[in-house]
């Protein structure tokens, strides 16, 4: 026969083992849960390539969410620090030639900037047309996603001046611009606020001289509010869209926004 025991207050030893049991139990369970969560994340599948690629799916979602948070602090009033020309590097670093490889023959004289409006209307602009527009110069600290940086001196036409002059204001109301090299080997997508930032220029000069081929002659993008990977060399085509244009490094695991 069972008789119900009268509940006695716990002794100190019982209290100790009870609290140890609970706390160590919860600790072990949480540690196990954490380890499993990490395993899930670390082994989560790589995204299928769209405009982005190469990153674990949950991490890509996180990058995109983080972009939204930091877009809120972006402002055209936040200017990149500029330096006196004397501080600019004489030898400007060349880090990549994707899309402008020297072995591919390229004729600068035949080049024209192709501007594709959203209604597929096409605009062709020559280098002389661009040089006729007001020139903007900037000496700033160019920053590479790898971690190095260099003070460089660029000159060209401010992107927002270009938009105004060619009456592309309706296009600039869209969300993104896309740029690609003439050989389509390198391409970037840039959110409109960054493209319209007052320090974003399409450069045809470096250190007050025409761009050499390895720096993207005849015209390249200099966008100081982005990492170097967005500073496309040798602009062939510009497009406008409300969806993200394809982006070379975003397809290879990097953040699409890559803003500074």
């Amino acid at each position, binding site marked *: 026969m069972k008789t119900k025991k009268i509940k006695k207050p716990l002794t100190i030893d019982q209290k100790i083992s009870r*609290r140890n049991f609970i*706390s160590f139990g919860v600790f072990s369970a949480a540690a196990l849960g954490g380890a499993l969560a990490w395993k899930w994340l670390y082994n989560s599948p790589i995204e299928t390539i769209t405009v982005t690629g190469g990153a674990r799916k949950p991490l890509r979602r996180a990058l995109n969410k983080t972009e939204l948070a*930091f877009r809120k602090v972006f402002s055209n009033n936040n200017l990149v620090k500029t330096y006196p020309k004397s501080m600019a590097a004489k030898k400007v670093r060349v880090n990549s030639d994707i899309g402008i490889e020297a072995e591919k023959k390229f004729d600068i004289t035949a080049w024209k900037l192709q501007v594709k409006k959203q209604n597929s209307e096409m605009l062709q602009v020559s280098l002389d047309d661009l040089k006729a527009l007001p020139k903007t110069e900037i000496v700033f600290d160019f920053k590479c996603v790898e971690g190095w940086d260099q003070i460089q001196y660029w000159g060209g036409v401010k992107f927002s001046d270009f938009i105004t002059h060619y009456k592309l204001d309706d296009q600039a109301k869209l969300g993104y611009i896309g740029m690609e090299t003439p050989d389509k080997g390198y391409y970037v997508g840039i959110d409109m606020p960054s493209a319209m930032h007052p320090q974003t220029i399409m450069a045809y000069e470096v250190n007050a001289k025409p761009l050499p081929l390895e720096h993207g002659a005849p015209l390249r993008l200099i966008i*100081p509010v982005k990492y170097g990977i967005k500073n496309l060399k040798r602009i062939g085509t510009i497009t406008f869209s409300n969806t993200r244009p394809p982006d070379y490094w975003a397809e*290879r695991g990097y953040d699409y926004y890559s803003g500074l």
Partner: protein
Amino acid sequence: MKTIKEKHSLAMRWTHWVNFPLLTIMIWSGMLIYWANDEYKITLFGHTYFHFFPDWFYKKFHLVHRLSEGMAFHFLFMWFFILNGIFYILYTLISGEWRELVPNKHSFKEAWLVLLHDLHIRKMAPPQKKYNAAQRIAYTAIIIMGIGSVITGLAVYKPVQFYYLIWLCGGYHFARILHFVLTIGYVLFFVIHVVQVILAGWRNFSSVISGFEVVDDQPKPKIKVADENEKD
């Protein structure tokens, strides 16, 4: 007689153990990023004593060619690291637990005595409450270092939008150096911390999980009277 002595609050234990894996992930992913431009070395009078980091180190821990991966992890876990830190600091301030943590006017003098004691040079350690003077300094410093990592990290991450943080950190280069040095600081802290925890023994360690320590009190005759009858 054994008694239960409450030591660490649930919030302190929770944030401590959440922070440990978070900081580990931040350091690891930070290494993946640093590899892409590993320019720091210790050079004195033209002689380089140490290069951060040697090739075998990168290879051993598989840190090579993983920049994009490192960034993706770093910029996700930074949120958790920041939130956990904010929660801890707010809790410590509001609960009043900061009084047991933040060094007081005696701490800096006493910490020296604690150090001498720990090194077995001095017999007596100064009297302490929850934390001794050296712990107060170390555990407060590590929180300030955490804040420093967030500020220098944000500065390097968005140097244009957070230009005032860059200014505060003494420029882009110095911000990156500080961010790196703080990380080395965590690793050194970790080593000393773990050695101290091992030396302090199981009871001390388990209190950071359970929250209490068991204290063996010598029964005091005055209290004995009533209690003793109940025991068998």
